[in-house]
């Protein structure tokens, strides 16, 4: 139930930040029934209400006593290593695309790195597969979008 507590607290923080932002909205015009902030605020009350409900409920739900509540970094890292690294790779890929490196180089790097992360580079077969998939897909997608669909890529 720790998961639910974290979820509800994070949601409440986001709700609070968004609620503060609603004070920056413009004034109500003569044709409007309510102010521009009314509807988003209503949704925020709704979401916050549900979050509080989940938070309260988390204190009353029986938890398995054998379940370890203590945060173990090593266990966490082992479980989510690939996911965290993939997020970082993707974030870096988006950064490269935004910084004029270009689609082909950015994609070649991202595809190779993420496949290497997920399948490893220990076996020759994996390396060959990785390089083949990376090259073929990058150029195929580039060709399809730019030549066939006339959509320019970064």
């Amino acid at each position, binding site marked *: 139930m720790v998961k639910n507590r974290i979820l509800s607290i994070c949601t409440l923080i986001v709700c609070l930040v968004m609620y503060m932002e609603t004070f920056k909205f413009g004034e109500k015009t003569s044709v409007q029934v309510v102010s521009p*902030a009314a509807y*988003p605020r209503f949704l925020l009350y709704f979401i916050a209400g549900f979050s509080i409900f989940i938070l309260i409920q988390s204190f009353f739900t029986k938890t398995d006593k054998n379940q370890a509540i203590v945060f173990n970094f090593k266990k966490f890292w082992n479980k989510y290593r690939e996911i965290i690294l993939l997020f970082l790779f993707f974030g870096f890929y*988006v950064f490269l695309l935004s910084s004029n490196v270009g689609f082909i180089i950015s994609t070649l790097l991202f595809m190779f790195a993420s496949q290497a992360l*997920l399948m490893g580079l220990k076996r020759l077969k994996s390396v060959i597969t990785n390089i083949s998939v990376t090259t073929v897909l990058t150029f195929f997608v580039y060709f399809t979008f730019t030549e066939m669909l006339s959509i320019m890529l970064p």
Partner: protein
Amino acid sequence: MDNFFLLATQEILNWSVLSLIIIGTICGIISGAIPGFTVTMGIVLAFPFTFAMDAISGLALMSAVLVGGYSGGLISGIMLGIPGTPSSITTIYDGYPMAKRGEPGRALGIGVASSFIGTILSVFVLTTIGPLVARFSLNFGPWEIATLILFALTLVGSLSEGAMIKGLMSGAIGLLIATTGVSAWGQVRFNFGFEALTAGFQLLPVLIGAFAFSQMLENIEQMKENKKQGNEAKKVNMNVHIPYALIIKDVWKQKLNILRSSLIGSLIGAIPAAGGTAANFVSYDQAKKFSKNPERFGKGDPAGVAASESSNNAVVGGAFIPTLTLGIPGNVPMAIMMGVLILHGITPGPMLFSTQPVLVGSIYVSLLVAAIVLVIVMFFLIRVFTKIAQVPQSILVPTVLMLAAVGSFALNNSLFDIWTLFIFGIVGYLLSKGGVPLAPLVLGLVLGSEFEKNLFRALELSPEWTAFLTRPISGTMVILMVASIIFAIWQSYKVKKKMEKKDKVA
């Protein structure tokens, strides 16, 4: 046959659109066949390719992906014993035992034929019921539209994955995200001082980020889990022989079962939130109840495969009914289909049938043609699809992420959209880890602006909130909304009691 139907047939039956339908069906089958990929992912990734197309070509491609996707799940279900899509879970019950006893070709053949018949019958349901619903909904005012959207959201939220509160919260988050940017009255909301946010979030990057991204990352978790437990890819006997004569005999024997399952699929498909998985289970259950030999179900009975596959493909036609007639998509694939229409400046809703009859007709024809292509392609390329179904997640995940980034960028040639994808990818993944279902969020996002517009238009016309209750249709919607919440509470209470009883026995 109506003139618009002939015009639509002419539009579809040319080589460029036909080739798109063939490609779409093949891609759909592949997306359905790969476990963990799902038809939704197929439709999400096909969406960017429609940007440069005209509306009819785009819809033809997407319809074909849908038809292929709902059917593709049977390949991995029968050959590997793993459902390619959640809507083909019950196919395994009988399909996999048939494959194990040396009849994979027969099981695949029955599945393909049933999928074909299911699609055809669902198009028939769509063509007959669709215009009636559209005509009826012409009477809808802003009160009815607002309550209908709210009802659809409540239904999707309260029935999703047994997490009612989180489902409703997810729907509200979707509605809140939709308020970002310039409102219908011209005021900027939630731009946090960033100019890029003034235009609001584009639907596609948020949708791909929240849905596809988290799905892919969950696939990685599953991949690791499988590795740990030693459940890695099985060696499959690719030597599949298709006994055509026996399949025709089987299908003829199952004609009533297929007809019943197709009707169940079409009707369930038309209900928001229900979708292919529910249709699959309900029709399988009904087939078992009506069978003279119910004890054979689960042990390799062709009737189980026929019921399962005809119903999940029949969902396609059914799901188009609320999307086209009311502008309310009942599930994520339909939300994306609606995105295709909006992208081409077409507003789905009751007027669509009178303003764009050829376009509506082209959807019917595309579905029919895709069903025919499905049978041909499946029988010729079944071995290839079985091989592709085994593509490792280590290749699939980076490919999908790269295509997601390209698709998001291609929408408006905007790098901000790729950042949106990335941020909503993180948000979606964290929400799904917190047990929050993402389908209500997607629907809230798609329907958000329409809901707000109609809600306040209704209040402008009549400032009394009670108008929502006193008008017959909107009043009925409110009652249905409350009933769906009560039903969900009762259902979760029942599950909880059952679990407690089980715990006590254990």
